[in-house]
């Protein structure tokens, strides 16, 4: 049975809402978490669907795309968007007790913004921050909402000190991370006392664990429920200098089996660069496979083998590459899945790190090797993003395959407050039954 994206959204919400409503939130307890992939930095999971709430950003973008204050309570800018002034929330302290001031925030912010605005400068005075650049910064709020712009610092007691609801108490890179509730959190103490995260474990004994995408079939323990994020990782093929075969190739790809079978329904077929929930127009790009047409085009190209590269040690992408090669073979094209880095076609993943469509489109283009946006398209508007995507897809520079969801198994005693969005699970909203 294949379920559309909206159905999964409804199903997930239906699972969580009763859980939240049946019992009253309870303070205390330790939430055990098992994650299949090891982290080598504390903030590595900041972009996943289970972000670790240790450090916070000045603002955040909600699921509707609106900017909400977090550590910054007010902001204003000049007409040219070159000069921004922020007022920081007062009475906010770091986990080591140091108060959050403008000066304390500057290093984190400067490190994040320098990547986008090279000549950016930040001046701090008390709880105020003045951010200036030689170029206009109309997207500065969205930039400041990214995990990279979270305000943190290192200290003697902990390698990662923030102002979030949890503080790091134990950290063994790649193996173990323990978080404790930060009683001095400005937004109020979280329900959980402790969060113990084990990396690389798949024992299924934890209260919360991730279910990786791919062929590994995992039977949920009794009473466990699953939660799936919105589609947030694009799996696509970057095309190189093999333009002649692309028309037949794109017609031969059947995305549905990849989403339903290979990804075990933890993915949606992708026809655009941004998912439907983020762009709103992705359905316009949908094209079903047409093997008959593909065969008509393909015979002229027979005989040559084209490499389809995929990252080594990634069984899911390998299975996708093999399936795509099989589809291509049906059309008479010979694709050879390979881990060689110089393959003509390259299978890649790009994870959305925010709900900012413009930012994600820009970032996606950079990460897929298409380069920076030119001035002909304005990704800040839906029309501009559509035109941009249409151009890319028509040229078949990128062939989207599926958008993956992140899925977690949630134990019966674990409850979450009504979710702010389906983009992430928020540990600060979690509580467990005693």
């Amino acid at each position, binding site marked *: 049975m*294949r379920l559309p994206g909206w159905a999964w959204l409804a199903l997930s919400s239906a699972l969580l809402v009763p859980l939240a409503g049946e019992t009253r939130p309870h303070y205390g307890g330790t939430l055990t978490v098992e994650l299949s992939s090891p982290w080598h930095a504390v903030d590595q999971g900041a972009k996943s669907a289970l972000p670790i709430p240790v450090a916070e950003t000045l603002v955040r973008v909600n699921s509707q795309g609106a900017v909400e204050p977090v550590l910054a309570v007010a902001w204003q800018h000049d007409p040219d968007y070159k000069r921004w002034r922020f007022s920081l929330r007062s009475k906010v302290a770091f986990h080591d007790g140091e108060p959050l001031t403008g000066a304390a925030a500057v290093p984190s912010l400067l490190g994040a913004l320098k990547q986008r605005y090279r000549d950016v400068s930040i001046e701090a005075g008390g709880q105020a921050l003045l951010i200036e650049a030689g170029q206009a910064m109309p997207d500065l709020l969205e930039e400041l909402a990214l995990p990279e712009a979270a305000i943190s610092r290192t200290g003697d007691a902990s390698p990662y000190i923030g102002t979030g609801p949890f503080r790091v108490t134990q950290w063994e890179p790649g193996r173990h991370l323990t978080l404790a509730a930060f009683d001095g959190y400005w937004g109020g103490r979280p329900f959980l006392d402790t969060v113990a995260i084990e990396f690389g474990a798949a024992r299924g004994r934890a209260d919360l664990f991730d279910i990786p995408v791919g062929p590994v*079939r995992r039977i949920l323990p009794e009473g466990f429920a699953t939660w799936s994020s919105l589609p947030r990782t694009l799996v696509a093929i970057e095309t190189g200098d093999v333009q002649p075969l692309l028309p037949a190739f794109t017609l031969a790809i059947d995305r549905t089996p990849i989403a339903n*079978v290979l990804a075990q329904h933890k993915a949606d077929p992708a026809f655009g660069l941004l998912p439907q929930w983020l762009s709103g127009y992705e359905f316009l790009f949908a094209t079903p496979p047409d093997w008959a047409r593909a065969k008509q085009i393909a015979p002229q190209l027979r005989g040559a083998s084209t490499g389809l590269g995929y990252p080594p040690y990634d069984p899911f992408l390998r299975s996708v590459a093999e399936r795509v*090669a099989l589809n291509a073979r049906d059309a008479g094209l010979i694709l050879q899945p390979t881990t060689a880095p110089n393959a003509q076609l390259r299978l890649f993943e790009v994870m959305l790190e925010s709900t900012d469509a413009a930012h994600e489109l820009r970032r996606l283009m950079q990460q897929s090797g298409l380069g920076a946006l030119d001035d002909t398209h304005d990704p800040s508007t839906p029309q501009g993003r559509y035109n941009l995507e249409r151009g890319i897809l028509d040229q078949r520079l990128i062939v989207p395959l599926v958008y993956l969801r992140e899925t977690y198994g949630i134990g019966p005693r674990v409850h979450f407050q009504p979710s702010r969005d389906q983009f992430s699970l928020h540990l600060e909203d979690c509580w467990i039954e005693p």
Partner: protein
Amino acid sequence: MSFRTKIFLSITATVVLAVWIVAAVVSALVTQSFERRDAQRTAALAGQLQRELDRRGADVARRVQAVADSDPVERLAVNLGGSVDTSTYYAEAQSLAEEQSLDFLELVGPDTAIISSAEWPARFGYKEDWLREAADWNKQAAFLKQENLADGSALGLIAVRSVKAGDGMLYVAGGQRLDREFLQSLPAAEGERFELYRNFDSLGRSNKLVDEVRRQPRQLTQVTDAASVTAIPLRGRDRQLLAILLIENSRAELTNLKRYIQATATAVGVGGALLALLLSFWTASRVTRPLRNLALSVREVALGKWDTRAPVTSSDEVGQLAGDFNAMTQQLVEQRDRMIQAERVAAWRELARRLAHELKNPLFPLQITIENLQRAREASPEQFDEVFRESTSTLLTELGHLKTIIGRFSDFAKMPAPELEAVDVNQIAREVLQLFDAQLRAPGSAPVETRLQLDAALGPIPADPDQLRRALRNLILNALDAMPRGGALTLRTSGYDGKVAVEVSDTGEGLTPEECDRLFTPYYTTKQHGTGLGLAIVQSVVSDHKGTIAVHSRPGHGTTFRIELKTQGTR
């Protein structure tokens, strides 16, 4: 070719031929034995292959049945009856295949669409229509099948089992790869090698045997110097040729053995040749030396040394031959001596007869004259003086005849040694012929035409001119005597090869061969009044000049005498 060489070649040929025949026979027998062994081994291996395939097929069928009986498959079958989403079983075949050590395993739904594939996971959803071909797979044995894989094709031993799933069937098709490991499991003897050609692969290099079996699938064997290769076709369910198993029996052992036999035969042959050489020397010393001595003796006898004796060194046939040779030469010497004695006696008798004959003619008138004198003295003394004068004249005449006869014999006996000087043979010939001009022109003489044919290119030769004149004169006299009724006398000179030839020809009655044979015998003559010394003198002169004389004559066609003298290299 010497006798020793012949012995050597004979012995060598005998030894080499014998060794070659023995080597060839042994080599043929060994080859036959090896080929028989290879054939038996190949046949045994073909049987072993079939048994191994049967055993593995049974094992595969058992494993596939175990998969079909497993909980996941049973659960899938139940779910299929309820039309459940089968995507969750996508990876099921891999774990099941791993559990049962199967290289291939596919779980196929009632619509023959692959639910899960262990060997090619990406092929889920694709149809395996061939599964509809059998009514009841559970009664079918394992079979060979070409399995398509992502990276090509493989040859598999496949078994299919079916499980009831609702109204349809869930098919479990699994198997094991027939690859190098399978070939290694076959019991290969030393020097035996297996190779599997898959019919669906493109051959890297041309192989005649494989091509032949591909054209007409049947078991074939190809024998080369290096190996004998047997190709066994392996077929699938519908008898199509899927693969060819090549069983290669190395013939290195046979080749080495044959090489050893050849080397041994060569060594024995060479040894035989050396032995033959030694044997030929030994045989030569024992056999050919007496023969050579005998041959030497024969040669000496041929040169005139009739008293030569061959040494008798053994009592065998050669020794007897030498003894017989000695006896023969002894007899020859004795016969020669007897003949010489007889010839001497005959010569003396002939001489006596000639003397008597020559002397008797003058003596008879002498006797008559003397008796007339005596009768005249007694009967008529007055006429005695006249008779005396007449008788003494007759006596003197006859005594003159006697003196002449005796002088001839004396001249023949007193033939002096030639005094050589440069002589113009043509000049001598002219002079001698000129001496007979008066005689030939005399009235009443027979008409004889003289022809002088001289080679003007002749140079002087070393000769005694007087003796040469005498010899030519005798020959001309003989020629004139041979033509009492006339004819043609030809005197001819010529030169060739360092020799000068002088020919005197007549057109007389000619001579019989017997007369020719005895012509130069002293005192032999065919004339009524000859002494038989003329030609003997001619032969004596020619012999003293180291020349030769020959006669050519046929009755009725005249006679030609030809004298050849050396020019000492000058012409």
